């Protein structure tokens, strides 16, 4: 043993900061969720233009994922990593850059999303300047983290650290490659990918954001805080190894299950499904290791609200990671896709797994960080029960809503007609369930408020100055040799002995490289063929780029977040083509930067909307949807009749699109003129039909032109005509 001991202390100040950020942003994220939950049954609750459902929904998802869960991960990771490595974070300055940078990004998101600045890719909505900031802050975090790893005083890295490493590396990759785009202004950009490829990249990202932002970081937290709180050893080291590597390798492939029956090629869809099914047990490895760690400690669960939070968290994790593989089966997905079922699924995960693990962790940390007793154990119990009933109400209502809508969409009557051909009828049926969701959400938020009050009171009784305990530990001995004798026998015997893995655990940087390789190799297996196989996207000659005015209209469609409620992707399923028209072809999306296929149908699909109604219908419908469709729950957009089109910006949009290969020809030079001419035509048609006058330079005309174009090119192809 090395006799010399280092004396050092842990940086708990940064942990305290992240703890408060977690709870405050969590409350904000949940409240926005409540607002948008009320907006659905009560469309008048949409305060246009900034606070409509389409703009707030991304703010809700971003706040909960990146602000609430993100800060919770950082909070727990900074606390546990230092102790597991017996080392203070390498640079307090970088820790602070990470904290303040991350909070600034959240504030930027909270400002820009309601303003309508969005890339319109789910959970990657933030525009390019913020994306760059995220990358910079993430690198600061990563550098600090990896240097700390090299300065550790514990030879081997514990399983929690493996999960943190995988998260840090993979999130960086996902973020960078999904957000590659060409700017067309300070807060506007177009994805460099189009259509099928963009959809693939987005769900490679989207699915793995769930994996590497909401799953692996929280598994890491579980592996530290649960055995700590239960004071029990972890059930199985071998299981940790196997489920870690299988999870990291298999997860990456699963993204295409978000695109079953879409224009994504079948082979990708099949891969996505099969790898999702294989992912079931690797995911459950975490649940098993968590729950079985409580063996012999179940009597404590009844007394300790912290363990109660953990048990519900791990159970919710188990439920949603069983449901995930099940939903990835194509035939199940055909029913569930585009419905509230998916919303219920993610809320089991977010409210149950991420929320409860965070609450348990925060309550465990609070007395240690604030160096005092928790203010009230009773309030912890209240928080637990309020939130538990909140989740139950929420998911029961929304699972029923999902199943109801999915079944209504596909129902045929005995004469071979759709049983519910009027889409709005399938929406009306959900209203009672939407109100139950509002109640469930309110309970969950009430619990959160109780929790914040409890934490505040705990904090208020902190000592005048925090004690900073000095820790002593020996530095790593460079002359160390592995005491473990390598297993004898064949390859299999040496593999199952796991001595090799023990050695990897002593080499964190090598371990990180191996993790990166697992993730990158798995990604390339799907990405390379998606981009290289030509038959993935058969060309359709009649598909032409949008006109400059239509492109401006599309920008408005993106800005208002229409894709949050409307898909543009008709699946080759009888009940879809019967309702919406011919199914969507891959070749139709070749100029779609980014793709706007959508993932949820709160309103009907729009892929074949063009030409279905006259221009005036759209003008009136956008002004007040209920004038045209009595029971519609869509927000009203009256401001589109007064807002003036930014014709100068259209040129920038066209130029950016041209730069990424959209054949714009002459429009590259004359976009504003072309747009004005088309706008005058649309405005004239509206006026001639008896609609409002003087719309020729108003945004509604651009949006109408875009909506009237949707699906037109394919119809022209089948009619043999030119546009």
């Amino acid at each position: 043993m090395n006799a010399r001991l280092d004396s050092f202390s842990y940086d708990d100040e940064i942990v305290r900061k992240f703890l408060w950020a977690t709870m405050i942003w969590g409350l904000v994220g949940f409240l926005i969720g409540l607002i948008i939950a009320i907006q659905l049954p009560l469309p008048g609750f949409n305060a246009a233009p900034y606070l409509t459902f389409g703009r707030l929904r991304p703010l809700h998802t971003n706040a909960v994922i990146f602000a609430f869960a993100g800060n919770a991960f950082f909070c727990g990771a900074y606390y546990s990593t230092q102790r597991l490595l017996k080392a203070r974070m390498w640079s307090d300055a970088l820790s602070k850059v990470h904290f303040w940078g991350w909070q600034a990004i959240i504030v930027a998101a909270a400002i820009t999303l309601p303003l309508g600045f969005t890339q319109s890719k789910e959970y990657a909505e933030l525009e390019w300047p913020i994306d760059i900031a995220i990358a910079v802050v993430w690198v600061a975090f990563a550098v600090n983290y990896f240097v700390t790893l090299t300065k550790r005083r514990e030879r081997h890295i514990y399983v929690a650290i493996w999960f943190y490493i995988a998260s840090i590396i993979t999130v960086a990759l996902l973020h960078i490659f999904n957000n590659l785009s060409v700017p067309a202004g300070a807060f506007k950009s177009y994805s460099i990918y189009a259509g099928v490829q963009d959809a693939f990249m987005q769900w490679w990202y989207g699915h793995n954001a769930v994996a590497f932002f909401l799953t692996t970081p929280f598994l890491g937290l579980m592996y530290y805080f649960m055995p700590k709180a239960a004071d029990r050893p972890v059930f199985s080291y071998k299981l940790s190894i196997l489920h870690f590597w299988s999870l990291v390798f298999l997860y990456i492939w699963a993204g295409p299950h978000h695109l079953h029956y879409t224009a994504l090629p079948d082979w990708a869809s099949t891969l996505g499904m099969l790898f999702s099914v294989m992912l079931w047990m690797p995911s459950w490895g975490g649940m098993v290791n968590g729950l079985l760690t409580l063996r012999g400690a179940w009597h404590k669960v009844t007394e300790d609200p912290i363990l109660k939070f953990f048990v519900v968290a791990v159970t919710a994790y188990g439920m949603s990671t069983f449901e995930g593989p099940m939903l990835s089966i194509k035939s199940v997905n055909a029913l569930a896709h585009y419905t509230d079922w998916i919303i219920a699924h993610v809320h089991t995960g977010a409210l149950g797994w991420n929320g409860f693990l965070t609450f348990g962790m925060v309550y465990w940390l609070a007395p240690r960080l604030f160096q005092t007793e928790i203010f009230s154990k009773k309030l912890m119990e209240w928080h637990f029960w309020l939130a538990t009933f909140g989740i139950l109400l929420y998911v029961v209502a929304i699972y029923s809503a999902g199943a109801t809508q999915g079944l209504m969409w596909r129902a045929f009557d005995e004469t071979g007609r759709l049983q519910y051909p009027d889409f709005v009828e399938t929406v009306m049926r959900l209203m009672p369930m939407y109100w139950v969701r509002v109640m469930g959400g309110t309970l969950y938020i009430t619990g959160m408020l109780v929790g914040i009050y409890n934490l505040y009171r705990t904090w208020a009784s902190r000592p005048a100055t925090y004690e900073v305990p000095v820790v002593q530990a020996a530095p790593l001995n460079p002359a160390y040799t592995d005491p473990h004798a390598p297993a004898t026998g064949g390859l299999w015997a040496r593999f199952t002995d796991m001595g090799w893995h023990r050695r990897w655990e002593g080499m964190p940087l090598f371990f990180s490289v191996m993790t990166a390789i697992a993730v990158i190799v798995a990604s390339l297996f799907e990405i390379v063929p998606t981009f290289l196989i030509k038959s993935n996207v058969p060309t359709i000659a009649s598909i032409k780029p949008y006109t400059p005015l239509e492109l401006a209209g599309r920008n408005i469609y993106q800005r208002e977040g229409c894709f949050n409620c409307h898909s543009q992707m008709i699946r080759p399923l009888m009940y879809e083509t019967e309702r919406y028209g011919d199914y969507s072809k891959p070749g139709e999306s070749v100029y779609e930067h980014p793709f706007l296929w959508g993932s949820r149908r709160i309103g009907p699909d729009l892929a074949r909307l063009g030409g279905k109604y006259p221009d005036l219908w759209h003008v009136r419908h956008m002004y007040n949807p209920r004038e045209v469709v009595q029971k519609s729950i869509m927000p009203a957009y009256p401001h589109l009749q007064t807002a003036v089109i930014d014709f100068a910006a259209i040129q920038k949009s066209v130029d950016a699109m041209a730069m990424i290969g959209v054949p714009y020809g002459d429009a590259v030079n004359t976009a504003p003129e072309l747009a004005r001419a088309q706008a005058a035509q649309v405005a004239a048609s509206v006026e001639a039909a008896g609609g409002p006058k003087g719309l020729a330079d108003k945004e509604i005309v651009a949006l109408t032109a875009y909506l009237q174009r949707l699906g037109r090119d394919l119809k022209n192809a089948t009619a043999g005509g030119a546009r």
Partner: protein
Amino acid sequence: MADNDNDKLLEHAYDGIQEYDNPLPTWWKWIFYVTILVVPIYYWDPMGIGVGPGKEKAYEEQMAAFSAAHPKTAGTYTDEQVAAFAKDPARVEAGKVVYTTYCVPCHRPDGGGQIGPNLTDDFWIHGGRPTDVMKTVVEGVLAKGMPNWGKMLKPDQVEGVVGYVITLHGTNPANPKAPEGVQAAPDSVPSVSQGAAGPAKKGM
């Protein structure tokens, strides 16, 4: 701590956290193997429960089977039959409900027309014979923005709403839209007096 004292603890500890050297749970291992086995079974599909012919082919097969099971009922009505719908009070009353829900946004409650044409005058864009009106409702005129309501409405709803529209003819809405289309020959248009049972009868 009673029930697992026999489990072997590994020597190492991290910040006080220890780990057992327990083997993988048998059920866990076997379910994992089974999910891996799903891959060849699904992909090569020896039992016909797997990947199948692909989504487009499967769709075409489904469509063929469906149309075989549901032969198109040729909606052949005579002018007399359609005109009779307008004289059936119950049918017209039901048709008014349909009209109020789906037609009012474009044709106004009194049929005077707004986005869509005036339904009360003698001018018809797509023909004024009762079967023409029926055809326009069922098939729509997509180029002009008239949806094909045959998809949206059940046959009895279509019959009702066509009957109701016929009763609107000859009424005098306030502020009507200017006539569009061709004036129909007098004998081809059922007049309100023919459809006298219509509850919406105004004037005349």
